[in-house]
């Protein structure tokens, strides 16, 4: 990998000013524009579409090697992931329960003295495994920017206002039917330094555990109809449109609460189970729920 690429990586996102390697890109450095990035994104998308037409299997996950997201250039394995049959510990998951997470942690709008600014929303759905079984009694963690697109994280230096009434972190334990529900504020889009005028579509980060450690994922949920989708290298790192669509929640008027909050529905599918389940486990009757 060329060294100049690395020099660029040091400045591509929000890094703390205290770090010696951090700082601002030299002004005379050729700045990549959105048009440059969009061309790269489209070229990779077109190549995938051709491969698909020629009979290549549909991709369902992001590419680890996706150069338009500049930070990935030195951070993706170059060797194929090595196939392994999961063994023992990998066929089980850490256990979380109601002593780990308070019920109120699923409401991100009540963590401070006042109401946060922005559009109150409910995000709800079910966590299922690849066989359609509910993932019961497992941990869901979320984090997000506030309504103006600002993270409370100290490394976020986007000059948008912080909200003293919004932290943007929530957790819950899924119900017996795999259901989860968060009350929060619709996050704003925010700028980042992948290239000039780079903006992330509004999203909520989700962290999920399944019933087996092999099912663990961290991902991002997006909102329907976002105009930034075609421009965003992180969303577009999933080159298959059907696969990308699986990260987009749908507006659900049945979830919307009158005079209170708009509802978005998003179901999350983990990979299939590798373990032979007892009837009780399959029904979610073990663990903390009993």
């Amino acid at each position: 990998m060329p060294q100049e690429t690395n020099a660029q990586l040091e400045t591509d996102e929000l890094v703390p000013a205290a770090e010696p390697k951090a700082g601002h890109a030299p002004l005379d450095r050729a700045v990549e524009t959105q048009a440059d990035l969009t061309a790269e994104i489209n070229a990779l998308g077109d190549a995938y579409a051709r491969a698909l037409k020629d009979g290549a299997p549909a991709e369902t996950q992001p590419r680890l090697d996706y150069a338009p997201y500049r930070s990935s250039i030195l951070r993706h394995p170059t060797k194929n992931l090595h196939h392994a049959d999961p063994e023992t510990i990998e066929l089980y998951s850490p256990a979380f329960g109601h002593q780990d997470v308070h019920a109120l942690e699923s409401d991100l709008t009540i963590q401070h003295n006042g109401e946060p600014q922005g559009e109150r929303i409910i995000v709800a759905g079910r966590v299922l495994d690849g066989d359609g079984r509910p993932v019961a009694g497992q941990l869901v963690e979320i984090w997000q920017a506030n309504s103006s697109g600002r993270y409370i994280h100290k490394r976020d230096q986007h000059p948008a206002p912080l909200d003293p009434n919004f932290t943007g972190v929530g957790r819950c334990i899924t119900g017996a039917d795999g259901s989860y529900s968060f009350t929060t504020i619709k996050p704003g889009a925010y700028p980042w330094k992948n290239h000039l005028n780079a903006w992330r579509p509004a999203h909520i980060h989700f962290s999920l555990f399944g019933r087996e450690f092999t099912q663990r994922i961290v991902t991002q949920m997006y909102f329907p109809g976002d105009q930034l989708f075609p421009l965003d290298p992180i969303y577009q790192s999933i080159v298959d449109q059907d696969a990308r669509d699986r990260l987009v929640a749908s507006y659900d008027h049945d979830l919307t609460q009158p005079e209170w909050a708009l509802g978005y529905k998003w179901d999350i599918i983990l990979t299939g189970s590798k373990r032979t389940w007892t009837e009780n486990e399959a029904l979610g009757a073990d663990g903390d729920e009993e």
Partner: protein
Amino acid sequence: MSNPTKLVPTPGQTVGPFYGYALPYDKDRELLAPGSPGSIRLQGTVYDGAGHTIPDAILEIWQPDSEGNIVQQTGSLVRDGYTFTGFGRSAVGNSGVYTFTTVNPGPTKPGGAAFISVAVFARGLMNRLFTRVYLPEDQEALAADPLLSSLDPERRKTLIARRDADGGLTWDIRLQGEGETVFLNFEGGPAFEGAAAGGAAQ
């Protein structure tokens, strides 16, 4: 149970740069209290393809206890000081170093090689990576391990920890390049791998 419909999994996405106020929690890297009988330190550094340390990665470990029992106790987020739950999470510091306080995992079956399951997340890493860290001592078990014996010796080394003088373990992660850590794909079979060259994550 009848054969249920197979559903396509939701794609992963990068953990991004801002997990630091969300994922870490009090004593997240202490699977048991430091100084407890049998406790050891597991530590290491995370490197990128240029050999630079990565300051914004976060690791999770999941392991059996020292007897090889897989613990199914809840409470991994509220360390009570007594219960070993087998799960830990450690964000790396500015120097790319992670640290856990844990125990040597026992083999989960007689004669099996003892290992810790690891998930790696980082800004710039599109999807989490799974890997394993094996204890270095039991050569016979290591030689018989199905995963290790499917790797050439150079790559195999990347999954075996070094034993430190204080009884702890050191194990570095290289996301790319020379000494690149072996990362695992639990989906599909070996034939699936060939299709992934330079392409899909799994």
